[in-house]
Structure formats: C-alpha cells, structure tokens
C-alpha cells in the first residue's frame, strides 16, 4: 500500500495528539493508607492509661477498615512506645514525622511527654490530638495544630469547685496536695479559685506522699472547721492514709478531687471498704451510671459493641477506651470531609466542630479554642463503685 504525504501528516498529528492525552496515572495519593502515628507509653510505670487508650484505637481502626476504610483508604496505625520518657517521645515524634511520614498524631498520652513534643509537632505543622491535662499544652496561636480531647486541669478544678459549692453546698474547704510539682501547682490554683468564688479555704497543705501518718493534717483541717477536703494528688498511698485516718477520727466529711481517688488499687490500701465511701473523684457523664445502674444509651451501646468484640473492660477505664476511639474517628472524619490527608484540611475540619458527638464527650473546637471537652460533662463519681471501667454518679446529680 502506498503511503501518501497526507497519510504521514495525519498519522503524525494523530500520534502527537495521543501523546498529549497521556495515560491516566495511578492515583497513589488517593489509595495509600491514612497513617496515624501513636505516641504511647506502652511499657513502664505510666502504661495503664495507654493500655486502655490502645484498646479504643485498635477497636476503631478495625471497625473503620472493616467497613471499607475512609473513601476506600485504610487506616494504618504507626505505634511507637515512648515508655513514658520525654526523650524517647521526642525521638519517636521526629521519626514519625520525617521517616514514617504520618498524616496525624494521637498522643503523647501524658503531659510530661507532651510538653516536649508539642513544639516539635507545631514546627512540622503536624495535626495532633492528645488527652493531656496541663494548661500550657493548648495554645492555638503557638500550637495551632494541637487539639485537646480530654479536660484540662482547670476544667477539673472548675468541676470540683462546682460540686463542692453548688451540689454539696459546703463553704469551708480544706485543700490538700502532695509535694510534687503537680500537687503544688494544682493546690495553688484550686485555693485561688475557691477564694474567688467566695468560699472559705480554712486549711491548705502540701504533704509528702510518703508521710506515714496523716493524723496531724487531718486534725488541723477538722479543727479549722473544714466541711470537705479537696485532694490534688496522684498518690494512692497518701489518699488511702487520709481515708483511714478520717475513719479512725470518726469524722463524717467528704473527700472531693483527683480521679486517682477512684483507682482500683485503693481497694487493697484502705483498712476497711467503708473507709472508701463518701469519696467523690472526678469522672465523666458518658462513663457514669445512674442510681438504676444504667449508663447513657450511647455509652451502653459502646459497651455492648466492645463486649461483643471481646475488648476487656474490667481492668481499665471506659473513658480511656472511648477517648482512643474518638481520636481515630476524628482523624477519619477529617480526611473524609476535607478529601485529603493534608494538615491544612484536617486542622480546618477540627476547627469547625461544634458539639461533635463522640463516645467520651461532645467536642467543640474553634480556631481560637482547642480545649474540646465540655466542662459541663465532667461530673463527680462515687470513687469506690468501679464497674467495667465506669462509676456511679456521686450524690446530687439527677
């Protein structure tokens, strides 16, 4: 067949046209997994919360991936054990950002580590959700990518004060903290806030948590006329000694304060089970059961799902598991809504949330407020009533 000049020109033009309409490239960015880094103290002395949080994280990831992922993209958890050590947390953060190239980070899970890692994440513009209580960890100007899922320490303080003054209706307060940095700071803030609200702080003291006998301080508080003792300490030994001393003194007065007063270890440390009564520790509406023993319907549904999935609840706290689930679901929704794993889109989504219905709480974030947990969902729990990681509401709540 003879090939004319016209055929050559047409063929050439056709080839050029085809070349310009290149073959569609595989959409790698749209199908790669969503990588979420987890800074978790899986071993070491502060591993108890991590164990609970991780159960929630794994539960949420399995559920989302089993349902097809986020717009077809699976979630991949990149877990790093920080052992509760800020140095290890810093190294793990840098590795997650620069090598694992995660799209967001959940954690660290304690404030000491978060104080070290938050500035690093801010420099890398890495979206971060964490449950740490120290006030300074949240600053939308300095750390616009950091979001707090749990209450801050001042929110705990507000809830305790509200319970003492408005529910128990006591006016003469004794405030006791331990001698750690946390105990001293929390006591100072609590005393100032009580005074500001018109309460009379009749006694305040920082006590060495290893002090074997609490009689002197308890006696002084009683002599001063205290109607309730507010406790800011994580030392269960010190708390148990105070409960035992109260019983030995025959003093019928409530303790109100830090969640550690509901720690299961106290059951073995108090001399009699009744010494642990009338102790009201910080808890959460979503994880508290009422006088009829019923949880809120959404929480009960979660417990049922967790039970069906064989997630253990008896040795942890429900709010840890619920918080882990919420963190992963928030990242998933952010990617789904913004349509990509870009930090800008994730942060913009989080900043737009108003009363987002999580399992742990209804979160609200704005560009100027990254403390997402609502203070009115913090309640006091009867400390000695743990049941599958939940507690009975303290008296006074309807």
């Amino acid at each position, binding site marked *: 067949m003879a090939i004319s000049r016209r055929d050559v020109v047409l063929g050439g033009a056709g080839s050029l046209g085809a070349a310009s309409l290149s073959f569609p490239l595989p959409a790698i960015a749209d199908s790669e997994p969503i990588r979420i880094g987890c800074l978790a103290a899986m071993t070491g*002395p502060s591993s108890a919360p991590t164990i609970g949080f991780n159960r929630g994280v794994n539960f949420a990831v399995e559920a989302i991936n089993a349902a097809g992922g986020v717009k077809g993209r699976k979630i991949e958890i990149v877990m790093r054990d920080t052992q509760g050590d800020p140095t290890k947390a810093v190294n793990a953060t840098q590795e997650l950002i620069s090598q694992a190239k995660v799209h967001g980070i959940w954690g660290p899970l304690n404030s000491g580590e978060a104080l070290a890692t938050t500035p690093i994440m801010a420099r890398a513009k890495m979206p971060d959700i964490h449950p740490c209580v120290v006030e300074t960890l949240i600053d939308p100007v300095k750390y616009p990518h950091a979001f707090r899922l749990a209450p801050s320490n001042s929110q705990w303080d507000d809830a305790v004060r509200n319970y003492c003054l408005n529910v128990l209706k006591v006016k003469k307060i004794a405030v006791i903290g331990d001698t750690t940095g946390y105990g001293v700071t929390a006591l100072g803030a609590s005393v100032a806030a009580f005074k500001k609200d018109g309460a009379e702080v009749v006694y305040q003291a920082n006590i*060495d*948590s*290893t002090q*074997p*006998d609490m009689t002197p301080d308890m*006696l002084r508080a009683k002599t001063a006329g205290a109607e309730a003792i507010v406790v800011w300490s994580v030392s269960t*030994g010190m708390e*148990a000694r105070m409960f035992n001393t109260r019983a030995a003194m025959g003093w019928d007065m409530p303790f109100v304060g830090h969640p550690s007063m509901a720690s299961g*270890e106290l059951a073995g440390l108090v001399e009699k089970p009744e010494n642990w009564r009338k102790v009201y520790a910080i808890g959460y509406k979503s994880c508290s059961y009422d006088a009829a023993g019923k949880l809120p319907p959404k929480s009960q549904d979660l417990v049922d799902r967790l039970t069906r999935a064989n997630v253990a609840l008896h040795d942890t706290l429900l709010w840890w598991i619920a918080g882990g689930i919420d963190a992963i679901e928030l990242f998933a929704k952010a990617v789904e809504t913004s349509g990509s794993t870009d930090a800008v889109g994730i942060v913009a989504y989080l900043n737009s949330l108003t009363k987002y219905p999580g399992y742990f709480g209804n979160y609200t974030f704005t560009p100027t407020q990254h403390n997402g947990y609502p203070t009115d969902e913090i309640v006091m729990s009867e400390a000695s009533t743990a049941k599958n990681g939940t507690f009975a509401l303290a008296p006074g709540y309807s």
Partner: protein
Amino acid sequence: MLASILASGLAAGAIYALVGVTYNTMYSTSRVMSFTAGQLAMLGGVFGSMFTLKLGLPAVVGFALTLMACAIMGVITEFVAVRPVLKNLDQHLYVLSTLAVALMIQQVAAIKWGTEPQPFPRLLGWGSGVWDEKFWLPVVACAITILSLEYLYRRTLVGRAFLAIAEDNFAARALGLPERNLRIASYALAGVIGGVAGFSGGELLLAFFANGALLNFYGFVPVALGGLGNNRGALIGGLALGLFQQAANFLVGGIFSSVAVFTLFIVVLLAAPQGLFGTSTARRV
C-alpha cells in the same frame, strides 16, 4: 494529740533506728557507708507483701523468706558495690558504687513491683487506735533486734570476731580471723536487720518502692546523730528523730516539718560533729 505523736513518732523512729543499725552493721566490718541500707528496708516491705499477701504464705513463713531474700541482697551489695572498692577507701568510690546499686534495686522494684504503694497485710490483728499493731510492732522489733545484737556482740564468739574486725582489721587478720567471710556475714546480717525494719514497718509505710530513698535519708540521720558505728546512739537518735518529726508535723505541718527536722539536725552536727554519742578519734600527725 500527745498519744498520737508518741505512737506514730516512736514507730517511725524505731524504723529509722533499725535502718541506722543497718548502716552501722555494714560499716563495722568494711568501713563503708553503704547507701543500700534504706533499699534493704524497702525490700523488707515489698518482699513481705509479696510472700504473705500475693503468694498467700503464712506470716511466719513470709517473714523468714523476706529475711532470707534481704540477706541475699546484702551479700550481693558486698560483692558488687563494696569489695571492688575496698582497696581505695580513701577515694570514697563506695559512695558511687553503693548509690548505683541502691538505684538499681529501686528501679527493678519499681518495674517488677509497680510504682504505686501496695497493701501490707495485718500480721497479728492486735490493737486499735494509738495501740494499733502498726505503731507498736516496729518498736518491739527494734527492741528485740538491738538486744539480740548486744547479745551477739558481747556473748558469742562470732560476735566478738565482728567486733575485732571492726576495731582493727589488720590485727584481726593477723590473728587468723577470716575477715572476708566475716564481712560477707555482716552484710547478710545487715540485710536481715533491714528486712526486719521493712517487714515490721510494712503496715505503716506500705509496700512501696519509693520508701527506699526516704529510709536511706532518714535512716542516715540517727547514724550521724548517734555517732557512726554506735548502735545505741542510732537507737536514741532514731527515736528522737521520729518523735521530733511527728511533733513538727502537728505543730507546723506539711513540708515545713521536714525543714524543722533538718534545721535541728544541722544545729546538732554543728554543736557535736562526731554525733551525740560518738567519740572523736585522735589522728597521728
């Protein structure tokens, strides 16, 4: 208030005195201030709780096993932290080596036992209020220990051999005394005394890894007050410390009681640097 000061002050003081005696026992045969003394007492509480509460053994068996375990830890201290530095006592390397072993004991206890205080069982169930056994048990244990040591040192051949080593190491060796074996035995004995302190004070202090550092510190005060190597001085210094500390707790409270205790401690040492019952030694020049 006075009854409470006496009960808890004497109890804490007896524990401090026993830790002071633990320091002295290790010092007597090696001239080394071993900073594992408080940790041995901490282990007394932890092992006691483990054997009697976690493993459910009878209190007597748990007590015997606790003392054995603490004796072994004492011997390990001698092998690991003391023996290698004995030739260079003047360089005071033992401060570093014994502190390092103390830190290791504390960290292992924290990891294996936990960082939260654990309960210690009621041993006899006798008494309540200020007569509760948690207050008088350490005092009784301290009295029995001091009397037993007096008997050992004054009435038995082994005890006299200990005293000979403590008095003049070289002369004792020249007389054929097995100095090394006696030193090992004294560290085992120190472990036992530390174990008694921790076990008898378990109900008061609980089984808690952080008690080691506390007892290291407060156990050293009676040694300094009573004079190094003087058990009677340690006893009186320990009881005085406990009573003063508890009285300060009642009077000034909280962290200020520690300030009061150490102010008095410094004042006493300024007035009597060799301790209240120690003797100043002449140095040949």
